[in-house]
């Protein structure tokens, strides 16, 4: 399949072709890819694309998957409304 048509990150609209271009430029870690292309930074927090990004890094740089660090996971796992957080805080 044409890498242009393979969507890796649905939230931030990043294709396999985008990743391959970044690899070619020398960006080789999940942390760098995230910051340059927003891959894995959308509402799903890389829950959908994370494994695929890790896999593509391993494939391109010819490394065992377990040697490719996963990205640094931060709260939240799911989006929460600011208003709901405020209301919860007011109750406590």
């Amino acid at each position, binding site marked *: 399949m044409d890498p242009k048509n393979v969507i890796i990150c649905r939230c931030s609209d990043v294709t396999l072709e985008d990743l391959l271009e970044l690899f070619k430029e020398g960006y080789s870690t999940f*942390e760098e890819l995230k910051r*340059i292309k927003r891959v894995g930074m959308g509402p799903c927090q890389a829950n959908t694309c994370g494994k695929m990004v890790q896999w593509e890094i391993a494939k391109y740089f010819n490394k065992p998957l377990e040697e490719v660090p996963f990205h640094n996971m931060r709260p*939240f796992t799911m989006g929460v409304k*600011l208003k709901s957080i405020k209301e919860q805080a007011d109750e406590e």
Partner: protein
Amino acid sequence: MKSKADYVIIGGGISGCSIAYNLAMQGAKNIVVIDKSYMTSGATGRCGAGVRQQWGTKMNCLLAKKSVEFFENAKEILQYEGDIEFKQEGYLIIASNENEAEQFKKNVALQNDLGIPSKVLTKEEALEIVPHLNPEQVHSATFCHTDGHLNPFTMTDAYYHAAKRLGVEFNFYTEVLDIETKAGKITAVSTDKGKIKTNVVVNAAGGWSKEIGALAGVELPVYSRNHEILVTEPVEKMQGPMVISFSHNIYCQQTPHGAFIMGRGDKDEPKSHTMRSTWQFLDKMSSTVCKLLPKIGELRVIRQWGGLYNMSPDHQPIIGGTKDLEGFYMACGFSGHGFMLAPMTGLLLSELILGKTPSMPMENLSLERFEGQDLDEIETSVV
């Protein structure tokens, strides 16, 4: 990695990258940048990347004004293919009471004197620019339409690529462990990947600049502390300017990509190097934004994180050398506004290092200004 260099820059944040680019631009060769992690892993990649010229001290005003002039043309100057996402739709600074309004009027007078096009706005005028402001929380405001914000990753990447094209060597995931000196001069920098002989070191290590100073035996009057921030899901454009309030303790912007980014300070935060996310921040941030900008309360937070502010005694940066150690230079103590000043940080420090006359007097940026007497000016317009 080179084993010998003319200049070793410690830190691959916006400061280190700007200094490297500016040195190379002026013809310096054999420049090496070292960072213990990935590019923008420090405060740079964690910051709000807001750029404002509405400051309370002359020095900060001038540095910010000249930096804005650079950002306006940065894409062309640095020949960057990507998008630095400079959204220049102003900073709206909210005054909550008469006292704040009085101080802001003085600030605007100073800013106007220096050629910064800021102005005082009535409550009604402020609400015209940001209609979702809660009118009950607004006394008046000040506004400067040429302020704005950028994408901190791509802006740093732009400097990085331009510096690389000029021959600068970057070494990421490489940690500086020691700085060797002999008879008041630098001789080498040792890292976990080997040693580099050099006579010039630039300390652009952000939150770790005090520790880097200590490696060279130079004591720096700075400290670090965590500062938290969050981002929401992206939505259609609803806010032009960055909204900021010192009394509510908030800054809040909508990036061109659609997400809102907001943060606040905590004066009780202890000095440390921990970069953490807390529920206490989340609670306070949510309450503050719901109070000042109620409509934004409907948005979902998707991520929160922390980063280090590197504080100096007068909340203005330290950019310069030191008489105690030849060849040792620093750019640190940015006190939460080093991103926006980076173009000037790089220009001034490179001029100083290369023995040229700096484009602006640098006495008020020197390490020596903290010796003895009272400080001339302290910046109070900080979140």
